[in-house]
């Protein structure tokens, strides 16, 4: 398989994720769509690692996974905090981050 096929899949998944971030209002689903975009970047990184034949791109992909895990952790913590304060779970309503 040529590497460009994987890049096309990566571009498609990234675009779908971007469309989801723009259209959905539930912060949980927005976080899921951010995961899609990060995973699209991961496919591209690993495809390029295969193209060059060395493992650096795979290291980058693992670091991206670490960052995604941190982002999920903080994002879900925010969602739980919003839920506890009886605020509407809607990204259009949560405009300001007062503590």
């Amino acid at each position, binding site marked *: 398989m040529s590497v460009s096929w994987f890049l096309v899949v990566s571009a498609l998944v990234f675009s779908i994720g971007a469309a989801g971030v723009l259209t959905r209002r539930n912060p949980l689903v927005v976080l899921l769509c951010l995961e899609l975009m990060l995973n699209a970047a991961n496919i591209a990184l690993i495809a390029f690692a*295969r193209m060059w034949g060395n493992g650096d791109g795979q290291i980058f992909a693992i670091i991206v996974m670490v960052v995604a895990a941190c982002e999920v952790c903080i994002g879900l913590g925010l969602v*739980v905090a919003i839920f506890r304060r009886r605020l509407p779970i809607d990204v259009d309503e949560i405009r300001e981050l007062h503590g």
Partner: protein
Amino acid sequence: MSEVFFFIAAIGAICGAVGVVMVRNPFYAVLALVFHLLSLAALFLLLEAQFVAAAQVVVYAGAVMVLYVFVVAYVGAAEPSRLRAPVSAAQRALAVVFALALFVELSIAVLGSALAALDTGGPTVGATFGTPQQIGQLFLTRFLLPFEVASFLLLIAAVGAVVLARRRGGIHEEEAQRLSVMDFSRPLTTGTMAEAVGAPLTRGAEPRTLGAEPEDADRAPTGGGGW
């Protein structure tokens, strides 16, 4: 043969991604993302990234998605009443147009790049390519600093999540009645080591016996909450 696997995995990944965006119920969106991640792990295997594929399945589709499922189960019950009307059709159409433009742009960037190796399957690699051995060697030699920074980042994220999701706004009912260690400590003047060295008695002259009501029992617990 690898072409067949590629198309199965790629179609699965794209269908999973579309499902995440389209499905109304957040729980099904999480399940669609799990399907998407498993398909991506198959794609990683086709690219000879065995360790990353295994980490994707175990860490991502396993641990991180369990976290999502927990939060969706916690939050999702109240969702229909607290989530307002869905986005307007104009905004949705605009988002689709933007996504298509983004895809065209990325495709132009890929096709227009002068990388001749894009149309090949990549060079032949050794048997250790993408194995835990190679990843571990790279992490502990060339990429030692990112490795350590990643561990700090995870620690900070864990602490931040605890701080964000903690209970705040005063002491709750059940916490106010919780017994503290001081309720079971010895009465004063009954031979503790502090008295033996002549430390001042700080808790009043009369000995406090186990089970006695403390003086400030009726004071309402008005803790400010927070740190």
